[in-house]
């Protein structure tokens, strides 16, 4: 019976759905996290009776035909990149992006990764780095005698050193944007990698057309909506249960048939 396999595909799909939802809920408080959504598509169809086929010798034609679907599959799991709310942290090196764009981070492998998590810190050499110690690109070094640091909306990093009153510019933060943000590949640690689907990074200054502005002293909260996730979880669970009912029904029907010859 096809129904058994069809319902199994439905259960597998709902399981994936629950996995995606649970990852969203687990990352509810992750800085710069973007929620994901599983999107489903119907599987292929078998044409049992093709529409337009002749149904009698008199030339009558089947108007609708019979197509039987084979279940469901995950079409894609995509990231919804709407803005997370900026959260004031007062952190000296915390920067949130308000709008589009990603910070660039140099990985130890020499590749560039992208992130929305702007909770930066300094390393032993005074370089601006992420939580994991990866340098933010372009390199920005804060002098050791800096008393105060300020980062402007357009990404200019200024410091006031001891004994001076005039701020001096020590660097400029840049943002990267992509044609297809959903095509970026997540590699964990809040980092994303460029892929063929995302297109090449387009680097620009914060505040320019197509790029967001920076907010100093803030981090971007995740855009996970707890209420929406919980209701999605309920829907997924019920859908899973209904698919299992189909399996039970198909099984019982088969068993009824099997008992005929007793």
């Amino acid at each position, binding site marked *: 019976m096809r129904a*058994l396999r069809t319902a199994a595909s439905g259960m597998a799909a709902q399981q994936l759905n629950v996995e995606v939802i649970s990852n969203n809920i687990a990352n509810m408080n992750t800085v710069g996290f973007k929620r994901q959504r599983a999107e489903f*598509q*119907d*599987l292929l169809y078998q044409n049992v009776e093709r529409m337009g086929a002749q149904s009698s010798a008199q030339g009558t034609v089947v108007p609708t035909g019979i197509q039987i679907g084979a279940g469901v599959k995950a079409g894609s799991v995509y990231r*919804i990149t709407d803005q997370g709310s900026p959260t004031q942290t007062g952190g000296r090196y915390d920067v949130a992006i308000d709008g589009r764009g990603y910070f660039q981070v140099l990985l130890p492998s020499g590749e560039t990764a992208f992130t929305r998590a702007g909770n930066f810190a300094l390393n032993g050499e005074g370089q601006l780095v992420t939580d994991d110690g990866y340098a933010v690109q372009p390199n920005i070094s804060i002098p050791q005698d800096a008393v105060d640091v300020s980062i402007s909306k357009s990404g200019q990093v200024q410091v006031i050193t001891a004994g001076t009153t005039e701020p001096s510019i020590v660097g400029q933060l840049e943002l990267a944007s992509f044609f297809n943000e959903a095509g970026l590949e997540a590699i964990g640690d809040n980092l994303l990698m460029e892929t063929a689907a995302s297109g090449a990074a387009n680097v620009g200054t914060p505040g320019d057309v197509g790029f967001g502005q920076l907010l100093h002293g803030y981090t971007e909260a995740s855009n996970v909506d707890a209420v929406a996730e919980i209701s999605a979880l309920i829907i997924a669970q019920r859908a899973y249960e209904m698919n299992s009912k189909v399996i039970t029904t198909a099984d019982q029907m088969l068993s009824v048939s099997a008992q005929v010859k007793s």
Partner: protein
Amino acid sequence: MENAAYVGLSRQMTLRRELDIVANNIANADTTGFKVEQLLLGAEIGERARNAFVRPGVSFVLDNGIGRDYGQGSLEQTGRNLDFAIEGEGAFFELDDGAGEAYTRDGAFTLDPEGRLTTEGGAAVQGDGGDIILDRALGEPSVAADGTISQNGNPVGRLSVVRFDALAALEKGGDGLYRNASNATAIEATDAQVRQGMLEGSNVNPILEITNLIEIQRAYESVTRMIENTNDLSRRAVERLGRA
């Protein structure tokens, strides 16, 4: 004598097929833009179930086709600006997937590396003048109810939303796509509205489907019992007649 068994068997076959279709409906209860289906049944008109000793009037069950309910699914807000839903029954987004024209109600679109608006499966979404190409540097695209896409207040294209006079002309192709199986031509759907940041859920009614499931199972059981009884009857007949 075997008529009852054969007619019962024809009903069992259609019941199994109905179960397959209900299973597909339930599996797709959460599929974007999915349209629910059901099997249409009738009595076989051509050939009657025949037996020389039985008076005519017995017909086999025949599944003539499937009915697809193109009713509106519920709209779900996703907040993603490349998600679109159509409000309006029987209207579709027009696509070109390389193998020809295709139609879909699943408006979870994305951009390819060249900025072309495509489905998740890579089929190019069609606008008034072919593919729709967006330049993200111009700002976030916003889409009006008639499908006009604008960036920064300037119109840059228009989503083509079409419908067919006879929806039976459409054939499901999987992956949320419909294909035109007849030579009917698509016409512009002027009454349908495009909603940005939303997706259309399936129009599967779970309660109805579970009820169908119960009905199918019970009908199957009772037909099976009827076949059993028929078997019993003939066995007893053979036993008694054989004894004489």
